[in-house]
């Protein structure tokens, strides 16, 4: 199958069907090839000729697709390298980190819980220990139709801290976190809400740090940093710990620095209720209410702010199966948001060009896994079915390496930069293993995207709590458990 190739400047010895690109195709391909670092003088001097036993259309389809994929991946790679360099060398923006004295506004703190008997007490007890004025915060455990002992445990904690916790036990209505949030928000009489998942362990100063950006009337949502608490459990948790570092310490903060689009992540985050109402409230027909809200706020003229010092412990998956289900769920939700918001985002005149471009790239980030895998397939097909008359080996190898390596290494570069900034010792040694997590995630995301297109139909799906497995053990009886604290 493999056709012979010519040496540069030598006689053309080729079989198959020579294909000459049309005028527009030649220019486009020329631009792509130049971007692929093949623009030497000698190369330009000769026309590009492809040969394939499967025909010219086949050959050109593969080549054009390959270059499109390389271009896309290179764009993301550059974006991630840019983020890392910005974090390491650029000017950092923490405009609200220094607001320590304030007349703090009243806030309602939601703790979303569906069968969370193992972890709900820890979250509530930690919230009772934060240094936010007690008379200005109301904690609302949002118990959505739990069938385990979640309700019992919540009621026991409520009794232990009288007047400070107002439980919201939901027994009917549409399932899912977004639907529960929608119902619970209707009961709120404060201007701000903060949302936690039940496995989170808020630290002492966390609420103040999440609330500080709301003194800016342009801020609609605030996102804090998530730190894995069970990172020492096994290799997966250690890899996820590294991934989280890269994602928050570098990616989110760089987007904050550069005035791009930091993302509200659905937990460890606050929302201005007025802004939420202005953009239509919670949508209970979405798979990722957090991404959906980020973009609706952006389109509605509200900013999302990332607070890197607003750190909170969470529990990360300890088995690969749980991790695969989790990331598939995220990917589907994100892709749904992409489907809904990309067109409006790109045409939103009130947003800056950089916000529009970065917002669109952020929306497309979960598409890159299937695109990458498609690139692998095309690379193989190119190698075995197409002969390029023009420095072909270099082209194929370059294409393969570019999409395979740049895309991966850029993310790894972020992780390395993050561990450096976290001064986190030896854990960066595990960086080389991240290819494993990367590969599993890529396959899971690609499967998720495929299911979404073929089975779920984008935009329509049955909604249910897709709960992540917890690894802490539930207290033996409500009210008898110890009082977990951060770092315990």
């Amino acid at each position: 199958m493999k056709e012979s190739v010519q040496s540069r400047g030598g006689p053309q010895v080729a079989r198959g069907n020579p294909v000459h690109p049309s005028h527009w195709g030649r220019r486009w391909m020329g631009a792509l090839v130049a971007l692929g670092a093949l623009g030497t003088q000698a190369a330009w001097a000769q026309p590009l000729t492809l040969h394939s036993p499967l025909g010219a259309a086949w050959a050109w389809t593969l080549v054009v697709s390959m270059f499109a994929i390389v271009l896309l991946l290179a764009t993301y790679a550059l974006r991630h390298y840019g983020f890392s360099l910005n974090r390491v060398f650029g000017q950092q923006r923490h405009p609200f980190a220094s607001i320590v004295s304030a007349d703090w506004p009243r806030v309602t703190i939601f703790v979303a819980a569906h069968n969370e008997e193992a972890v709900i007490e820890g979250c509530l007890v930690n919230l009772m220990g934060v240094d936010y004025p007690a008379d200005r915060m109301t904690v609302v455990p949002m118990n959505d139709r739990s069938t385990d002992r979640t309700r019992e445990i919540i009621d026991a904690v409520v009794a232990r801290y009288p007047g400070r916790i107002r439980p919201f036990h939901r027994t009917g209505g549409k399932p899912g976190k977004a639907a529960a949030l929608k119902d619970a928000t209707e009961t709120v009489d404060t201007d701000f809400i903060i949302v936690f998942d039940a496995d989170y362990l808020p630290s002492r100063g966390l609420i103040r740090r999440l609330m500080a950006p709301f003194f800016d009337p342009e801020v609609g949502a605030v996102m804090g940093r998530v730190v894995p608490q069970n990172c020492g459990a096994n290799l997966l948790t250690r890899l996820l710990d590294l991934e989280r570092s890269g994602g928050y310490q570098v990616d989110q903060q760089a987007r904050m620095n550069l005035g791009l689009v930091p993302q509200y992540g659905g937990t460890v985050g606050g929302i201005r209720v007025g802004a939420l109402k202005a953009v239509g409230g919670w949508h209970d027909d979405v798979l990722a209410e957090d991404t959906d809200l980020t973009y609706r706020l952006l389109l509605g003229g509200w900013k999302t702010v990332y607070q890197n010092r607003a750190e909170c412990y969470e529990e990360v998956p300890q088995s690969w199966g749980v991790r695969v289900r989790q990331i598939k769920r995220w990917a589907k939700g994100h892709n749904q948001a992409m489907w809904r918001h990309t067109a409006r985002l790109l045409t939103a005149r009130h947003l800056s060009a950089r916000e529009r471009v970065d917002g669109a790239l952020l929306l497309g980030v979960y598409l890159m896994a299937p695109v990458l895998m498609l690139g692998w397939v095309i690379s193989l097909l190119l190698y075995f079915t197409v002969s390029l008359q023009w420095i072909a080996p270099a082209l194929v190898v370059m294409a393969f390496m570019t999409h395979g390596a740049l895309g991966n290494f850029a993310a790894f570069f972020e992780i390395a930069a993050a561990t450096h900034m976290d001064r986190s010792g030896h854990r960066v040694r595990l960086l080389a293993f991240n290819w494993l997590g990367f590969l599993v995630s890529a396959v899971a995301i690609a499967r998720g995207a495929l299911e979404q297109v073929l089975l779920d139909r984008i935009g329509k799906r049955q909604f249910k709590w897709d709960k992540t497995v917890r690894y802490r053990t539930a207290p033996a009886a409500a009210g008898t458990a110890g009082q977990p604290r951060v770092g315990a």
Partner: protein
Amino acid sequence: MTMALLLILLCLGVVLVPLLPALSEWHRPTDVTPLAIDEADALEPDCLARRFAARLDRALQLDVGQVGDTPLSTLPRSSLWPVGTLTKKEQRTGRTERIWYSAGDAVLPQGLHGLAEIAARGLLRAAAGHTYRALLAGGRLLLSSRVRVMRWAHGHSVVVGDQCQLSARVSADELILLGRDVHFSLLHAPTICFAGVLPADVQGGLAGIEGLTWEAAEGSVARRARVEGSLTVPALRHWEGDLAVAGHVWLGEGCVARGSIQATGMISLGAGSMVSAAVTACGEVYVAPGAQVRASIVSESAVVLGPGSVIGVPGAHATVRAPQVDIGKGVIVHGTVWSGERLLTVGDAFGELDDGHREAGVYSLDEGVDWDDVTGRGVAPASLSIAPGRRWDGDLVCQGDLELGPRCHAAGALKAHGDIGLGAGGCVDGSVIAQGEIVVGAGVHVRGSVASETAVVLGPGCRVGSPGQPATVTAPRVEVALGVVVHGTVWAGHSGDALGTMQLLAEGDGGDWSERGEVGAQVFHLPGRAVA
């Protein structure tokens, strides 16, 4: 063949070598604890002081003679330390690396810099021109002039002398008083006063006027003081009683006089000051920007009312009477202005915008703001210039520069992507946030926080926050004029300066106000025409 093998080995090496440390770390984990979250909250301004106080208390309870690895010594009460208190090395170098502690008051001696913490349960006075690492006082902490503190200083109240260099965090349980030309980084207390001239008495406050004798007025519960010769009152003093001065009177910025002022010479009321009764002078009466006189002003010569000043109160009319009256922008008089010879108003009293402004992309509150019915928030897509005296409800976001005329009242927060200038005597109920520079005019009261990504300039006599409602002023660069009061925190990322003199000018408004500037004063230009 050999080359091929070498190539394969090289490729395998490239792939496998990075895996070796990973395999090692996986096999024998050395770093598996969760990333530390700042549970002690190091961002809390007094965190370091509290932490040291706890360590010191523990060491004293255990009577171990050292805090951590550093020796703990007892401070002599007097600044004349007995022979043998210092080691030969300390005497020779003029530096001590011991931690010093006193159970009562203490005065630090001349010629000894402290490279470790120094603490006293009562009053602690630092020696002028000396350098200290950290100072802790249970009572008042006095930093004499030109003192340098490197890490932190904390006291029940803290008095900072002129030209101190505070690269440290300075915090107090009650009050921080600052002198002139102080360089600071972080100040934190329920009340922070940029008073300029400090009270001579070590326990003195800002109440009353030093050197004045008050006597009860006949037939009245009010008291009265007579002064022969001119009287200068430093910034932020407050008193109750009538003043009769045989000479000129200069009131500092932010002074509050609950009584009348009468002078045979001229009277000058500082920016942001307030006089609750009549002001009468044979000479001129100058009312600085943002000042307030709640009763009549009578002069036999001239009255000059600075931008944003207010005369009288609603329902109790006052009279401004003089042969010549000059009135600045945004002045409010509740009552009568009676000018015998000349009445001059400076600039356009209503601050109307002309076509030139619109061509430059500057709009007014009425035409340039899109108000949201749901949130009550207004968004201006371009620069905005708001006329003097306007009042509105709701937050305002401006995607260009934002300029408020004198005596505006924003019942909400302000945000600008560019600069913000707040005209004299105005009031903002919420926070003021900008990516560009924020210039807060004289006598302005901002109830919320002031945060800029560039710089904040607090004009004379302005206030930020309120008692019981703290606020933060933060920016990479912070400059503060005399007479400013901040309830909460002032945090300068790169540099903060409490200036001895500052003059705020508006573009195109030279004349009367610029002529009053002192030689060598810092001069800031407000964006647009807002006079501070």
